[in-house]
């Protein structure tokens, strides 16, 4: 996957003043499939090739029939890049294929659906393909790059465009920064016609193509605002030999904070594509991110949770997760958190680090005791409690008869938890 933010950063140090371009919200927390992106494009009249999603070989055949014409493409729908060069575990090569007939579409779909695709981004486990998209394949005259991002520094949306589409945009930004166009959009005034004309001229578009590009961009900007996107990236945006301007491939990022007002986009969430530990955590309203290390941690507050991961590493261990139980965690949430972190087979020890400002340390202590009754804990548990009602919390733990290691401060805790795994 292309990291446009990184690309722009490199560009910034390269030539003109660009402002730091960092997309502001999560990327992987809420991903959508290609066919869902196509649905959004259709809804906002952003031109893209005709296409239909299919869950069975028969549906793929019917979709190909409906689209008609000879040149079609069939694509596995998974949340991972590098599909074209991927390999299925059944030995079938490639998650993207050109097909000529509906029957062929059916055959290819049969080889992909229900099979696991491994790409450079999926890891060895690969991703199970549950759907394929059948789309018309278009004849390309030229490939462009077009993205809209929320820029953290200027606190405004920025449109980025380049004539060098279809390529690694980081490389374009690094080698030919003058080919990266950008336009910062006023937060209240919105996209102006002259800004569209500037970009269009910058891309060298004329006549009907300039008009088609302008229409697409205006609609794409509407989509960006209406859906509370943090990023929409089209790479490539193509001019076809018929003179159409179409979005061929797209990547979306949404602002998690705004999803409450977009039930339609929430419905796009595909939990099959997510880390099951993270799905379980979100059900209990816990802020959890799974990692590969051997020491799990349970912390209150995002900053302290990050810092706890850091100090585990500093003490010679590897963090197994990020987990913020929040400032108002309940006993039930603590129990749920323990279940999630102990379900990870790599975890060899657990560190609980609580600075109870307002949070009652005894609530955490009771949660730990309750959790160990439900989950048989066979690995070392190090607990550091500090702050509000800490005496009661320590007493609860001491009286529980639990075999745990107590620590006085964060450093002490980190050293003890790392030592317990050696």
């Amino acid at each position, binding site marked *: 996957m292309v*990291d446009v933010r990184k690309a722009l950063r490199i560009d910034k140090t390269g030539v003109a003043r660009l402002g730091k371009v960092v997309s502001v919200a999560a990327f992987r927390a809420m991903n959508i499939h290609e066919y869902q992106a196509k649905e959004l494009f259709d809804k906002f009249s952003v031109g893209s090739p005709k296409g239909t999603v299919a869950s069975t070989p028969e549906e793929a055949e019917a979709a190909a029939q409906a689209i008609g014409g000879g040149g079609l493409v069939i694509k596995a729908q998974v949340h991972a890049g590098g599909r074209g060069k991927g390999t299925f575990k059944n030995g079938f090569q490639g998650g993207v294929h050109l097909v000529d007939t509906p029957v062929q579409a059916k055959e290819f779909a049969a080889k992909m659906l229900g099979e696991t695709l491994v790409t450079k981004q999926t890891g060895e486990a690969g991703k199970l393909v549950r759907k394929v998209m059948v789309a018309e394949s278009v004849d390309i005259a030229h490939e462009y790059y077009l993205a809209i991002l*929320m820029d953290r520094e200027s*606190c405004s949306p920025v449109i980025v465009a380049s004539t060098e589409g279809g390529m690694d945009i980081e490389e374009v930004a690094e080698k030919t920064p003058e080919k990266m166009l950008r336009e910062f959009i006023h937060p209240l005034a919105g996209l102006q016609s002259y800004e569209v004309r500037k970009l269009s001229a910058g891309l060298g578009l004329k006549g009907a193509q300039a008009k088609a590009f302008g229409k697409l961009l205006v609609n794409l900007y509407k989509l960006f605002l209406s859906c509370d996107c943090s990023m929409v990236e089209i790479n490539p945006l193509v001019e076809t030999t018929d003179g159409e301007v179409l979005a061929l491939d797209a990547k979306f990022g949404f602002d998690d904070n705004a999803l409450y007002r977009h039930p339609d986009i929430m419905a796009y969430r595909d939990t099959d594509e997510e880390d099951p530990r993270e799905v379980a955590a979100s059900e209990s309203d816990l802020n959890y991110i799974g990692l590969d290390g051997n020491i799990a941690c349970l912390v209150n507050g995002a900053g302290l949770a990050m810092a706890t991961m850091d100090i585990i590493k*500093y003490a010679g261990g590897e*963090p197994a997760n990020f987990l913020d139980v929040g400032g108002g965690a309940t006993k039930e949430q603590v129990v749920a958190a323990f279940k999630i972190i102990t379900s990870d087979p790599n975890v060899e020890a657990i560190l609980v680090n609580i600075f109870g*400002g307002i949070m009652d340390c005894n609530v955490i202590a009771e949660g730990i005791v309750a959790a160990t009754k439900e989950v048989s804990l066979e690995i070392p548990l190090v607990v550091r409690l500090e702050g509000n009602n800490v005496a009661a919390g320590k007493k609860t733990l001491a009286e529980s008869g639990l075999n745990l290691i107590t620590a006085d401060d964060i450093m002490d805790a980190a050293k003890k938890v790392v030592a317990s795994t050696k």
Partner: protein
Amino acid sequence: MAILVDENTKVLVQGITGGFGGKHAQLSLDYGTQLVAGVTPGKGGQVFEHGGHKVPIFDTVEEAKAETGATASAIFVPPPFAADAILEAVDAGMDLVVAITEGIPVMDMMKVKETMKGSQARLIGPNCPGIVTPGTGPDSSGGCRIGISPGYIHQRGKVGIVSRSGTLTYEAVWQTTQLGFGQSTCVGIGGDPINGTSHIDCLQMFNEDPETEAIIMIGEIGGSAEAEAARWAKEYCKKPIAGFIAGATAPPGRRMGHAGAIVGGEEDTAEAKKAILAECGIEVAQTPAEIGTALAKAAGW
């Protein structure tokens, strides 16, 4: 002295009738804060009572300000209504608006930020623990507490603290209290990507504050605010600074709890930020356990 607020600051709470806002209004009253009004649309005329205090509730910030002389507002309004609440406080002419609310859509904050341009009001947050200027009473009571910080961990003293994270602020406060340095003012600027007050704003204010003798700056991955503040400090700050950056082990591209805590590129990693801080003469604590001792080293205490 101290910055932004002191024991005389009159505070109102927008969202005082909500569970969260109400609880923290009580804690602020217990701390001795001059909490003079509450605002909840539709509940004007009611009274918020706690421990002998009777705090009048108004329908609008404008009325509350006119009746009570409040100059600072704490916002505990749920995310869908928070941007409106911030702008209402700004429109009413509040000097300081502290938005505690977590989860405000970025597009809403983008509009708030633009609308506030040229305004006299200062916004702190959103998604922040708030601001505390400790008092001189038992457990630092008698001070001004706006937000959700635990009051009792503070001690009136000579360290100014600015941080994006709540719990890491508490760690730094606690350590400086344990070491006997105390704090002039502690500002949590919040973990969102678009916020009202930056690290650099706070460094500038601490630099001018006679009571502040040294500064702790706590940051995290994502964005360039810490690096800019450090570069400013190298040039202009007369006072010793200790810093800490969280997120060295955060995987790229993942949002670490705070909406703004995400590594986008090489320059906003923890290591890159730490290096910039160190280059700018800031004493960088390698772990959160060493923030207090790093400050002692920087200040020669």
